[in-house]
């Protein structure tokens, strides 16, 4: 059986989360807005208008370039890419061609086997988005809302080797984009778009074979499936002695299948030339250092540090650094708590994450401040409250925003550690359930859990369960 390997490169378009568009003052994000409601003479290409560059776009591009280890250029230029299409009102797209904002770069992609795949970046530049067209009732409609929305086009080298690596790369990229607050990076909403160039070759070969391009996929999972299917198709074709043709393939989400959009014939000539309406983008040292002044520790570095510094398992570190505000939250709780980081991690991974998912929040939006969570954990540690009460308390703090201690006092949640009171309750239960006592003594020791449960219930959950168990053992065995 011949062994093949897949050679995959990704062309991504990242919609930046700036307030306004790249060359005018229109609102950038039109998600859910009516067609043509965020447009002006500039982005709809009226005669006589001129673009003016939004500095925030440059700033976000620099952040991404830095994170991708790319070389930020002090001078970069915009170019015109000329072509006709109804969604392109000027008849050219303003993009960067031969002097982009950054050159080179890579991402270190951790692989499941513990290794790392170094994914090269061959292109990273700023550009404007085009609009949208659709057919409706036999007419073709255009919506210019998206015209002029800022994008970064980022293209990888053909360095990915499987559908899983494609998904892993996009998950890491999405994490990074959100981490840097560059993009919402939501593939479903088109904030992050990825086309995959796929080819195969025999293992051990070094050349590149004809590739196909997969377009119009709008989730990471679907892209994984699409790439998997395309690799399988190419292997089948080659095995059958057929040549791979340079097709562009369209993904159909409903049928989960690829179909041929067009053959790639000759390369279009876009007649690029420098955009005379914009000046050189000069990134002087002062501006660059201002942009990079608050450059954060990146997720992979932080993940590694969490393992090293806090002794967390890789698994915990990975989840805690999946999102920047969660990882910040972890560190703040940990600092306020001052105890075992793994204990804090457990609280975050079990209870805090559930809360965040249920309420659709980010950690930074929690009413349970890091200080409050540390306090809750300490209350449990000190046996002031038991663990279930602690978890309930977390929810209450999130609902009310009140300090945990106040809630504990106001609601009398403090755990009963009074042996006398617990003994009284336990004795009553033992007296009221002679049958169960009989069975327990006859060897059904599993009933201990039931007895403890009864004590907890009688004490309205406030009894220290360990203490209850001790007392019960004494009463039942004694």
């Amino acid at each position, binding site marked *: 059986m011949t062994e093949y390997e897949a050679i995959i490169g990704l062309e991504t378009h990242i919609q930046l989360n700036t307030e306004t568009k790249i060359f005018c003052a229109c609102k950038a994000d039109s998600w859910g807005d009516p067609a043509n409601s965020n447009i002006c003479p500039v982005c709809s290409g*009226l*005669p006589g*208008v001129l673009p*003016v560059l939004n500095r925030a776009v440059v700033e976000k591009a620099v952040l991404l370039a830095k994170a991708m280890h790319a070389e930020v250029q002090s001078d970069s230029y915009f170019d015109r890419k000329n072509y006709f299409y109804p969604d392109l*009102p*000027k008849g050219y797209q303003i993009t960067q061609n031969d002097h982009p904002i950054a050159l080179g770069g890579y991402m270190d992609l951790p692989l499941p086997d513990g290794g790392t795949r170094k994914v090269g970046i061959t292109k990273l530049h700023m550009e404007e988005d085009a609009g949208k067209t659709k057919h409706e009732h036999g007419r073709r409609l255009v919506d210019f809302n998206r015209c002029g929305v800022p994008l970064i086009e980022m293209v990888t080298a053909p360095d990915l080797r499987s559908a899983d690596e494609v998904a892993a790369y996009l998950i890491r990229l999405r994490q990074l984009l959100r981490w840097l607050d560059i993009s919402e990076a939501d593939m479903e909403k088109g904030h992050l778009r990825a086309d995959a160039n796929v080819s195969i070759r025999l293992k051990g070969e070094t050349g590149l074979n004809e590739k196909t391009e997969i377009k119009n996929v709008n989730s990471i999972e679907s892209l994984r499936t699409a790439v998997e299917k395309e690799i399988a198709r190419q292997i089948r074709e080659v095995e059958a002695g057929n040549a791979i043709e340079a097709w562009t393939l369209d993904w159909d989400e409903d049928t989960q299948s690829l179909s041929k959009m067009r053959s790639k014939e000759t390369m279009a*000539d876009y*007649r690029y030339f420098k955009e*005379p*309406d914009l000046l050189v983008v000069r990134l002087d040292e002062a501006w660059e250092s201002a942009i990079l002044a608050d450059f954060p520790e990146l997720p992979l570095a932080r993940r590694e540090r969490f393992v090293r510094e806090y002794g967390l398992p890789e698994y915990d570190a990975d989840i805690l650094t999946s999102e920047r505000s969660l990882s910040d939250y972890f560190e703040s709780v940990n600092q306020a708590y001052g105890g075992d980081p793994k204990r804090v991690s457990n609280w975050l991974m079990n209870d805090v994450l559930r809360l965040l998912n249920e309420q659709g929040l980010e950690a930074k939006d929690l009413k349970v401040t890091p200080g409050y969570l540390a306090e809750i954990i300490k209350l449990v540690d000190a046996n002031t409250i038991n663990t279930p009460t602690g978890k309930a308390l977390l929810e209450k703090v999130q609902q009310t925003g009140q300090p945990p201690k106040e809630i504990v006092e106001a609601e009398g949640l403090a755990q009963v550690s009074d042996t006398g009171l617990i003994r009284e309750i336990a004795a009553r239960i033992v007296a009221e359930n002679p049958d169960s006592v009989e069975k327990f003594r006859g060897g059904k020791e599993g009933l201990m859990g039931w007895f403890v449960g009864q004590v907890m219930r009688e004490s309205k959950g406030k009894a220290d369960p360990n203490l209850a168990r001790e007392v019960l053992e004494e009463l039942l065995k004694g």
Partner: protein
Amino acid sequence: MSAMELCDLSAYELAALIRKREISAVEALESTLERIELVDGRPGSLDAGEITAEDHAKVHAFITRTEETARAQAQAVDKSISEGVIPGPLAGVPYTVKDIFNVRGTRSTAGSRILSNYTAPYTATAVERMEKAGAVMLGKVNLDEFTHGSSSESSAYQPAPRNPWDTSKVPGGSSGGSTAAVAAGMGALSLGTDTGGSIRQPAAFCGVVGLKPTYGRVSRYGLIAFGSSLDCPGPVARNVRDAAMMLSVIAGPDRRDSTAVTIPVPDYTAEIEAGVKGMRIGLSPDFFKIQYFNHESGQMEEEPISDEIKQAVEQAADRLSEMGARVVENVPMPRTKYGIPTYFVISRVEVASNLHRFDGVKYGYRTPVPAEDLDELYRRTRAEGFGAQPKLRILMGMYVSAAQYSEQYYQRALRVRSLIRGDFERIYDPQGEYRLDALLTPATPTPAFGYGDVYGDTVLMQYADQFTVTGNHAGVPGLSLMGGLSKERLPLGIQLLGRDYDEATLLRIGRAFEVATEDAAWRKVRPQVLEGLS
């Protein structure tokens, strides 16, 4: 000679009289409207029918007249002044706008069928500044289609403008409507544009003052682009002071144009009377011949320029010398001869791209023939909507920017352009050999040519811009003004080219020349169309 009317007064005089309430803005306007009635004839239109003998005797500066809004603006100026508020330095001064600028609520055609039904929803920055200064817009004036020409004949709106000095001649172009209007008293000022000479050449043909400011001095926002790296909006006026006043109003940074520089704008009238004593003004032999590439012989060939123009320039140099300027002769400007070929490449690449947006999808003309598909819609719309000039320029622009030719043509032209810039840097270098304050040249190789004489020969037409176009490549300012009259009673234009952002010096020299020639016989002669008017 006929009596002077209010409409013949300069912007400076009109503004002063109106400010002092000696006349009203409405009176100034009515006088101007009356002049338009007398001399302009019918405005340009797409379905002009036969051009009659009567048409031949008129100026036809306008495409769209805006009398009603003009009256409202003039009344508002008068009301404001009666309440003690001066709306601005040009309050009540009637002016026209080349129909390449967007003015909200008016038809903005660019002289093309493809924009025949286009009403602009916003106003160009330069026009907005004129409005704010209190100037009263009379309407939109004719031009070569998309500014592509040097005679104004290529407009889709016929009859095309004619030269007020001799209506059998062209007014020049592409701002021919602007210069003809100003010469004939149809507005004291006009807002034009200059990409290769389109203000200075028609100003020379019509005997008025035309100023191409430094690239970036006046915002291009709202100007329908031709060659984006070359286009400069600028004033057309009857004298230097008026041009200076207008430049002070329209110049300056604009947050909607990132190529509009942030350098502060001086009051260009402040030093205008300071004279030329001690100034160094150059004459270059490279501006006293036409050099062109003969595609039959394959050689660069030379032809002399009009003797009368040569003499006008030499006499101007003498006058300035008498006033204390130092005239520096034999200043080499060796790349002048490459100006036109370089322009043929750069402007075409830019315009091919700039005209992409006219596709029948969003606004403007769309073919009435139902199209099978999108490509057919584009093809038909553009084939029917564009005239010959835009089509030729698009074709050439597409060709020289194509991947396989770009290096040979476009990239090379850009390198030549920086060499041309180098010529200017050398002569203005304060540490250099020449240390010039300005270069004095002919504005055009010949006086106004006959209607229909050159039209159709795109290459020959373009050579009308040989002396102006290098200023656009280099970005430097240029002032064109009348330097005499030919035996045929046609204006002879001289040009002053200056340093970056130093329009003030050019205006000062221009004003000194006006003072020096105040009593010259040719100053007393008025354009033919004004003769016999009472």
